[in-house]
Structures are given as C-alpha cells and as structure tokens.
C-alpha cells in the first residue's frame, strides 16, 4: 500500500512538473465522476469538453497558446471533490469546468473562490450553489427552483388542473423540487395531499391508497427514478389512473422499465430541451457523434461551458481570474444551446427547461414554456 501511495505521488509529481514546463499552454480543469456508477455522466461530460478544446486548438488556441484539459475524478464524493479542487488549483488551472453533482460543486466552489478562479458547472442544479455570493461561480444548466416553476406553469396553463397530490423523497433534491413546484401551483391549484416517502423503500401502496381517496387529477413527485417507477407501477395496480409528473431525476430509461411501458405512458417530466431539436446544436451533435458515441444529456452543457470559459479568457486577453470572471459576467455568448447570458448570481438568465412525456416506452419533448 505504501509503495502504491509513493508511486502515485511520484507519478502525479511528474505529471505536474511536466505541465509546469509548458508555460505557453493554458490549463482548464475538468472535474466530475469519471469512475463508479456515474462514470457514464463523467464520460459524456469529458467528451463534450474534449471536443471544444480540440476545436479551439485546431484554430490556434487562445492568446496564441495551446489549451490543455486537466481531467480529475471526484467519484461524486464531496470529500474527494475538495481534494480534486485543490489539486487543480495547485496545478495552475485558469478555470474549471465542473463539477457534475451539486453535492460536489458546492464544497469545491469554496476552494475555487479562495483561489480566485472561475468555475462553470454544466450540471449542478441545486439553487444553493449560486446563492453563496461567490462571483466566480457559474452554471449553464438551470436551477431546481426554475424547474419547479416550469412544471407548475405546465400544470396550470396547459393541463388546467384543479386538484393535485405532491410527494417527495425527503432528499435535498427531491423535497427542494417538490417545494418549489408547490410554491408556484398553490395559488391556482388545490393541493389535496402533500407528504414524503422514504428513499429506498419499495412499498408505496399505503401512500397511494391515501392519495386515491382524495381524488386528485395528477401526482407530482420530487425524487429520482427507482421510486418514481415504483410509484407509477403501484398506482396503476391500485387502479389510480391519473397522470404522473416529475423532474429531471426521473428521466432515465430505467424509470419506464420499472413502471412498465403501459403504466408509464403519458408521464410528464421537466428536463432540459432535446439537444437534437435545437437548431444551433446541429453541428455540435454531428461532430460529437462522429467522434464519440451518442450524446448524453449533459454533453452539450459541458461543450458550451468550455467554449464560454475560453471565449472569456480570449476577451479578457489574460488568464487572470478576476479579469476572466468580469468578462463572464458582462458578455453574452452564442453557443450550441443558443444565446447564454449570466445574471449577477452566475445563473443563466433564461431557464432552459421544457416538459417531456413518455410515449410508446420512449421519452420525447412535449411542451415549451
């Protein structure tokens, strides 16, 4: 074990000394879950960044220097995220694209803020991240509260419902989403049932029986796909045939598999738009899929985040953190996702959420706010 540690120390020392010699290169940190059960997300993420970096390098880099992406694995572990963040800062990263999970981005943002370098996360949606008052923290994805709002608008304006039930899984994400949704619908809609369930539980018949008694027209669930799948399945078993609605944590093929295609039919889910349907993303999708595999849900966000970071460095004409952060706040960027501008907090000014539905066992985009 000791030998292994020593070996990895030597190797990392060599890597970093190797980097430091190339002083004509600009280093961009990349942090996300590259191994473990979320490795797929990490790979989607890394591929999007690699594509952007290669495009810039083929055009001669930024400020006449080549761009190097320093990829680090945070294993979606908050502790690991902090150590990775320190590593990237010490390696001299000019800015960081990452992290993936909100639970990692939040503690890591402390480190980047202290070092004075900007971070842009392509995927962390927890509102807290940009509420800490750090000027250098940005995200190109939406926020859970914006997501709840879009869901609420859909239920009020499109479905025109009067009575609904809201449940959540008591986690930061799930309850946060359900509460935001509730906040926006409660003026117009009667919430006849509101309660939490236990994440990891398999039996929701009791809750669903209580819900059935109240005769709502829709069930909104804040949580992720295993519970969502079971809820839909068991609701149908109880003869509760009302639509089900949830957020981006549920948009996973496993959801349909667990619930069964027939039971899941007509479920509404708030999620970012289908990249394949965005006109400005056409070239990106083609290039990405030619080089790697099918694009993942967050590949395009990683790609745009990288382009935004590099454009800001180019405009600032320096890698100085303060100058780059200033540019990030003032500029408007045109990327694969369309026009992106950050507000004072570092959030995107236009929330990119739409409503998807399930049809014949597949997810498809359904409604735009």
């Amino acid at each position, binding site marked *: 074990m000791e030998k292994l540690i020593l070996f990895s120390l030597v190797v990392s020392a060599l890597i970093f000394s190797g980097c430091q010699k190339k002083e004509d290169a600009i280093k961009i940190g990349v942090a996300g879950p590259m191994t473990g*059960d979320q490795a797929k997300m990490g790979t989607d993420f890394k591929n999007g960044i690699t594509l952007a970096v290669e495009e810039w390098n083929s055009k001669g880099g930024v400020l006449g220097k080549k761009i190097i992406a320093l990829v680090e694995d945070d294993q979606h572990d908050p502790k690991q995220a902090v150590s990775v963040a320190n590593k990237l800062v010490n390696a001299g990263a000019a800015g960081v694209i990452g992290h993936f999970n909100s639970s990692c981005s939040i503690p890591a943002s402390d480190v980047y803020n202290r070092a004075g370098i900007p971070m842009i996360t392509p995927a962390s949606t927890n509102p807290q991240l940009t509420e800490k008052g750090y000027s250098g923290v940005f995200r190109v994805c939406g926020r859970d509260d914006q997501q709840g709002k879009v869901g609420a608008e859909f239920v009020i304006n499109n479905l025109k419902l009067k009575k609904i039930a809201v449940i959540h899984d008591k986690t930061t994400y799930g309850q946060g989403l359900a509460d935001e949704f509730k906040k926006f619908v409660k003026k117009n809609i009667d919430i006849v049932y509101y309660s939490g369930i236990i994440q990891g539980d398999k039996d929701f018949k009791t809750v669903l029986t209580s819900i059935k008694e109240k005769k709502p027209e829709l069930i909104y669930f804040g949580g992720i796909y295993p519970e969502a799948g079971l809820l839909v399945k068991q609701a149908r078993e109880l003869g509760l045939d009302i639509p089900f609605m949830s957020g981006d944590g549920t948009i996973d093929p*496993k959801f349909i598999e667990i619930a069964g295609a027939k039971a899941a039919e007509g479920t509404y889910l708030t999620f970012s738009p289908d990249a394949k349907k965005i006109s400005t993303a056409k070239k990106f999708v083609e290039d990405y899929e030619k080089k790697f595999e099918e694009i993942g849900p967050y590949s395009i966000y990683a790609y745009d985040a990288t382009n935004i970071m590099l454009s800001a460095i180019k405009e600032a004409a320096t890698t100085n953190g303060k100058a780059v952060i200033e540019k990030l706040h003032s500029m408007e960027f045109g990327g694969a996702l369309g026009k992106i501008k950050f507000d004072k907090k570092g959030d995107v000014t236009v929330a990119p959420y739409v409503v998807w539905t399930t049809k014949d066992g597949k997810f498809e985009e359904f409604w735009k706010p």
Partner: protein
Amino acid sequence: MFIQQLINGITVGGVYALIALGYTMVYGILELINFAHGEIYMLGAYLGIIILGFFTAVGLTSYSLPLALILTFVLSTIFCASYGFTIEKVAYKPLRNAPRLSPLISAIGVSIFLQNYVMLTQGATDKVFPHVLENEGFEINGIRVTYIQLFIIAASAVLMIFLHIFITRTRMGKAMRAVAQDKVMASLVGINIDTVISMTFVIGSGLAAVAGLMVAMYYGLVNYSIGYIAGIKAFTAAVLGGIGSIPGAMFGGILLGLVESLSAAYISSEYKDAYAFIILIIVLLIKPTGLFGKSHEEKV
C-alpha cells in the same frame, strides 16, 4: 379505504412473517441471530430473476407461464436452501462451542460477503423483474386487489400452516422442538443434532427464498441491498412476537405490516420505518420476552 390499507398491510406482513420464521427458528435452536438471513431473501429474489430470464430465453415462459413460475419458485427455493445449508456448515458449525459473540460476528461477515458477492457479479444498479402479471386484479366496492397480492397472502398462509403441521406433527418437528429445549438431552436420547440444525437452516432459507421471490414479483425491483432492511424488519417482527416462538414470528410479521401500513396512512408516511420500531420498544418495555415469548428458565 381502511380495508384497502388492511390488504396492503397484510401483504407486506405476510412477507415479513415468512422471513421472521427463519430468524426465530434458528434462534430457537442455536440462540444465534442469523444476520445473514436477510441476504438469503435477497438471493431468492435475484435467483428468481435469473431463472425466469433463463426460462424466457428457452421459450418456456411463452409456452406456459404458470409452469415457468412454479419451476422458478421450486428452483430458487432449492438453491437458497442449499445456500442456507452451506452457510451453516461453513460459518456457524465450526463455532458451535465458541463464545456466543463469535457466531454472531461470523453471521455479520457472511451477510457482508453475500451482499458484495451479489453486487460484484450482478452489478450495483437496480434489476427489474420481468412484468409477468402486469397490474392484473379485480375490484370490489372500490377496493382493488391484484393477483400477486392475493398470491402472496395465500402462499404465506399455506406455508405457515404447513410449517405448523411440520413442527407439531412430524418426527423431525418433534426432534427440532427437543433440540430447542435442550441440545445435550436431545442428543442423549438419540437425536442427530447436526441433521436437525441443518434442517432448520434449510427450511428457514427456503421460506426466505419464497418471500424474496414474491417480493421481487410484487414490486418488480431488486438490488443487492434489499436484504438488509427486510432482514431488520423481519428481525423486529420475530422479536415482537417473542424470538424463538414460531406462532410469535407469524403474528409479529402480520402485526408489523399492519402497523406500518395503517400508521403511514393515518398519521404520516414520512416516518413509516419509525413506527415499527416504536411499537417494538413499547412491547419490549411491557413484555421483554415479546408477545408470544416464554421467559427463559436457566438450564442447570
């Protein structure tokens, strides 16, 4: 709706009772809390998915679904029973005369081993059980019962009746009760203790396998860690009924299912897991041996 909640509760309770029987039988005979018992339940669920998947691949499921299901039940019960048998021989038998804590720690070790073994060979993500009896059921006065629920309630009842007859009426049952009372005396009158203990593990594991498979069919979702919480709940049920007592385990399981279901329905669903344990604490404070437990006389 009250009756609907009762049916929900009895379904879950029946499953708890089947698992609790394995805990209580082993405790009755060895005074060992077999912490690996929940993992046998989990293995039963996984084996069900694997065996049914195999039958689907060879075309038996489309030929005759009932036949495929019966064979799946029989095979996974046999597999799990042999797991139970092997675990006893490997992890508990060598420690039979060791201090009481040693087999307990060995049991925890087996539990961790089995969880990781399944995680590494089957993956850490949720496995979906094939939708065999999709949402089918009937409705009376707005109360909906699915065939799977009916099947779980009926199967649990039949198995418990069989077990009761086995324990009270057969020679092996008598031998088990004798060993539970006094191991040394039982061996003096010519009972082969090893056989009795093996039989206990085989029966307990078989019941857990049936419970696991029924749950997999009912919920349609299985992962490597389901044995832990199910094991804890079933253990609670066994203690509630009086550990070592077979009618106690049956009653404790059903009671636990009902308490969970009714309290989640009429108080709050957020603390569903807590109610079961609150009831446990109250029962233990009032009657430390559990509802059906006999106070333990010191053997001289």
